[in-house]
C-alpha cells in the first residue's frame, strides 16, 4: 500500500506539494515511484526558471521509461535538489523527503487549494489501478 502523507497536496499527475510559507516543495509520490521502478536519472530545471501550473519542469527516467514531471503550481524555481544528479535512487527510497525535486516561489497561493487532499489522492490512485 502506497504511503500518502496527510499534510501534503497532490496532483492527478502524481506529484506532491508541501507548502512552506510562500514556497512550494515538489516531488513525485510513493505511488508514482513504485509504478516507475528504479529511477536512474532525474532531469531538473535551473533555479530562476519560470513555470506555469501543469507545465513540465523536468523528467524522471527509470530503467524502462521516461516520464515528464509537472509542477502543480505557478512560479519561479528557487532551488533544486542537486543531490539527485548523483543519487537518483533517493526518489525511490524517500520520495517525500530526500527525494524532493524542486522548490517554487508561488505566484498565486490559491492554486494549492484546487489540488487533491491525501484522502482524495488515495481514492484517485485506487480508481486508477483498478
Amino acid at each position, binding site marked *: 500500500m502506497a504511503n500518502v502523507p496527510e499534510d501534503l497536496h497532490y496532483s492527478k499527475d502524481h506529484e506532491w506539494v508541501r507548502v512552506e510559507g510562500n514556497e512550494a516543495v515538489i516531488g513525485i509520490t510513493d505511488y508514482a515511484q513504485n509504478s516507475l521502478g528504479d529511477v536512474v*536519472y532525474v*532531469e531538473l530545471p*535551473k533555479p530562476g526558471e519560470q513555470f506555469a501550473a501543469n507545465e513540465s519542469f523536468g*523528467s524522471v*527516467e527509470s530503467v524502462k*521509461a*521516461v516520464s*515528464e514531471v509537472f509542477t502543480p503550481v505557478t512560479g519561479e524555481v528557487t532551488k533544486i535538489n542537486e543531490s539527485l544528479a548523483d543519487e537518483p535512487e533517493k526518489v525511490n527510497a524517500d520520495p517525500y523527503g530526500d527525494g524532493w525535486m524542486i522548490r517554487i516561489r508561488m505566484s498565486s497561493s490559491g492554486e494549492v487549494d484546487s489540488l487533491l487532499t491525501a484522502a482524495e489522492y488515495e481514492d484517485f490512485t485506487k480508481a486508477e489501478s483498478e
Partner: protein
Amino acid sequence: MLGSIGLTSAEQLFDSIPSELRLKAPLNTPAALSEIELLARFEEMASRNAGANRISFLGAGAYSHYIPTIVDHILTRSEFFTAYTPYQPEISQGTLQTIFEFQTLVCQLTGMEVANASMYDGSTALAEAVLMAERVTKRFKVVASTAVHPQYLDVVRTYVQHAGIDLELISFNEQSGQAAAELTESINEQTAAVVVQSPNFFGCIEDLASFANAAHAKGALLIVAVTEAISLGLLKSPGACGADIVVAEGQSFGVPLSFGGPYVGLFATKEKYARQIPGRLVGEAYDKQGRRGFVLTLATREQHIRREKATSNICTNEGLIALAATVYLETMGRRGMQEVAEQCLQKAAYAARKIQALSGFSLPFSGPRFNEFVVRGPSNAQELLSRLGIEKGIEGGLPLAQFFPERVNDFLVCVTEINTREQIDSLADGLAAVTR
C-alpha cells in the same frame, strides 16, 4: 484470378490511370543479351568513362585514400553484411563489439570522452551537434564561420530552420583563410554554440583553443567539424583544444568515394553531455557470471522509447560503414595513421610549392595547411581546370566560384598519400601548359 475479382482483362487493373497517360505500345527496350554479350557491353560503356581514370586532386569533403584489402574482406562477411540493429544483445555480440570498438577509436582520435555508434555522414552529424548544443545550453543562437564547408552549412540550415534556432554566419578572414576574429566577438550570453571546421573548407587549420576559450567565457559550446578525418592522425585533437562536441566525416577511413555515399558521421562529446547525444550508443556490461559483454545503452534518449521528446529522429547508425572505418583504423594502427597523415601533409606542401612557383599562380591564404589549399590562377578556374582534364587527363581541383561567386580564379587542390610525385609534377606542368 481476374475472374475472382470480377475483371475480364489485366488492362482493367489500370483503368484508374487516364487513357492519355497510358503507354499503348510495347516498351522500346533492346533485345535480351547473353551474359557474355552483356559483360562486353558494360565493359565497353565503362571504358568510355574517361573521367574515372583521371589523376585526381579533388577533395572538399570526400577524399581519395588507399583502402587496405582487408577492409572489404571483413565487410562482406555475411555475419556483418546482413546484421540488423542489435536490439538483442544475446544474439548480437559481434556487431555490438565492433560498434564499441568504433566508439572507442572515435574517442581516441577526437580526444573526447564519449562517442555514439555513428551518424549518416559528417554534415548531418554537424546539424545534430547544433541541435544538441541547444538542448545542453537552452539557448537558441548559433554562430558559424563561413570557412565551414558550404554544403555542411546548408544541411545545418535545413535542420534548424524550423527548430527556432538562429544560425548566424560570420565571414572568414580573407587574408588567412581562417575563421575571423569577428566570430569570437559575436559570441554572447544567448549563444548556444560556435561552429568551426578544422582543417576548414579551404584546408586551413583553425586555432581551436582560442575559439574554445571565447565560447566557454560566455557559457557557449564549441562545435568542431572535421571533413578530412586523416588530419586527426597528426593534428592536436579537437578535444585537447577544448572542443565540447566534435563531428567528422569518416569516409577517409577505408570508405570508397562511390559517388558521394554511403559515408559515416563521427560524433563525440564530453561524458557530462552523454544523455543529450543523438542516436545509438553501445556500452560495456557484465553478465550474471561476470563475463564482459556489450549492450545498447541510454536507449531512453531514443525515439522508440522517448517519442517526441527524443534527442533525435535518428533511430539507426551507419553500421556497415562504421565497421569499414573500424577495420581501417585497427589495420593502420596509431603509427599507420600518423604516417598516412604525414604523407598527405608533405605531398600537399610539395604540390603547393610547385604550383606557387608557376607564373601567374599564387596561394591567396596564409593560414597553416594540412592536405588542401586554395590556388589563385591567372584566369577563370572553371575553364582552366576543364582544359586540364580534357587535354592532360588531370582533375586539378574544385573551382570555388560555385560556392563563392566572386572567387572566379580560385580553386581548391587536395593531395593525399595516393598521389605520387610524378602526378604532382604533371599537375604543375599541366597547369603551366594550359595557361601558356
